[in-house]
């Protein structure tokens, strides 16, 4: 924990140094000069409102992308025939630029919440699928045989044999997933929503207000750090208890 804090302080020091070099608050303000606008945005409720909007979109897209990717990845990793059929699709979607998917979703579905979430989800599903598929391919065949001979039910097999072996892959997909998703959500908001952090950044981009752009993006990074430290890492520690015990 100490190292983490020291490392974050190092980043802040680098910022101070860069701000001192540029010596222009218009281009890069000092970190401490953001505190007042941050406090103002936070107390008027504007910041929490937009953070909340973005967070909801992130959580929706994350939940959908993880569930879909988990199912697809498992099926593709376990059944060779399905993998042969779906693999080219995966390559197509992996290489489809996020921006194209977002624009198409807005054009086809309309400038609404559903289009936004669908666009983000579709952007993330192929990555999750790829990671999970690797995990499913690495499953222990001996344990599978054991479960089969002892007649374990499919739901028990999934819960106690397959998913525990997949945990590191699920964690990897979740971690990279959450980070990528919030970046795509920002683009989606930037292009076609009237609330959320991305919308605010769009607004302050047009006003050339670097300070407020930083206030909004840093606030959300803070939210993501809190999620990482209070949810993701404790969950990971729990499912990996057996490795260190």
């Amino acid at each position, binding site marked *: 924990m100490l190292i983490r804090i020291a490392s974050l302080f190092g980043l802040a020091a680098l910022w101070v140094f860069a701000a001192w070099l540029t010596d222009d608050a218009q281009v890069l303000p000092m970190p401490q000069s953001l505190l007042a606008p941050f406090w103002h945005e936070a107390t008027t409720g504007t910041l929490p409102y937009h953070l909340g909007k973005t967070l909801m979109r992130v959580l929706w897209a994350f939940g959908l992308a993880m569930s879909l990717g988990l199912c697809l990845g498992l099926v593709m990793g376990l059944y060779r025939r399905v993998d042969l059929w779906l693999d080219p699709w995966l390559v197509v979607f992996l290489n489809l630029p996020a921006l194209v998917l977002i624009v198409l979703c807005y054009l086809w579905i309309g400038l609404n919440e559903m289009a936004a979430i669908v666009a983000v989800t579709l952007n993330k599903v192929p990555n999750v699928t790829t990671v999970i598929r690797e995990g499913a391919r690495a499953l222990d065949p*001996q*344990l599978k*045989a*054991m479960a*089969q*001979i*002892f*007649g*374990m039910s499919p739901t*028990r097999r999934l819960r*106690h*044999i397959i998913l*525990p072996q997949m*945990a590191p892959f699920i964690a990897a997909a979740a971690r990279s997933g959450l980070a990528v998703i919030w970046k795509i959500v920002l683009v989606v908001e930037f292009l076609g929503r009237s609330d959320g952090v991305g919308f605010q950044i769009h607004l302050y981009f047009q006003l050339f207000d670097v300070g407020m752009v930083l206030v909004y993006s840093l606030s959300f990074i803070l939210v993501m750090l809190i999620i990482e430290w209070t949810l993701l890492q404790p969950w990971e520690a729990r*499912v990996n*208890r*057996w*490795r260190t*015990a």
Partner: protein
Amino acid sequence: MIQVDVASKSYGETRVLQDIHFSVSAGETLAVLGPSGIGKSTLLRLISGIDDQFEGEIIRPKRIAMVFQEPTLMLWRSALDNIRLIHPHLSRAEAHDALEMVALVDKADLFPGQLSLGQQRRLALARGFAGQPELLIMDEPFVSLDAETADQMIALTEALIAQSRPATIFVTHAAAEAKRLATRTLSLAGSPATLAPPMSPKSVSSKGDTL
């Protein structure tokens, strides 16, 4: 009671097993001997039903248990859960009894990784017997154990078999193990492997009375 009639088993173009016919009754312990690589494990895969790509027929009971070469435990679940999750009909007390049989009751809440290899093997043995199997299959269950541990394991297995009297088929390349546990011995030989003429069978009356 299990009836094995394997006409042939091939991997691609290579025929590995041919004309293997035998049956094992409840309470009987059959040892299958043969050099490594001959196809003993393949035969067990057919018998256990993991592999159904072969010509012939195998009639097996419903409750089957297997003890593998490796312990093959769920490393992410406690010793007790390794038994309870495989045998959900067992009560907590019954699962504890199963651990008691192999002297692991004080390790119930530990993860398999916290046990020694010998203890993991015993846990796998307990898991095998906990469901009162009608057919018990063991694939080199005492391999890579030191002599003393192997001896304890064999004695334990003997006791457990005597108690629940399943039809037991076990594979080994150690004739001494076979002699000690088995009521009957079969040898695999040749390529494709088939049953060699039976070796001197141990007296059946001392071990089982169902024949």
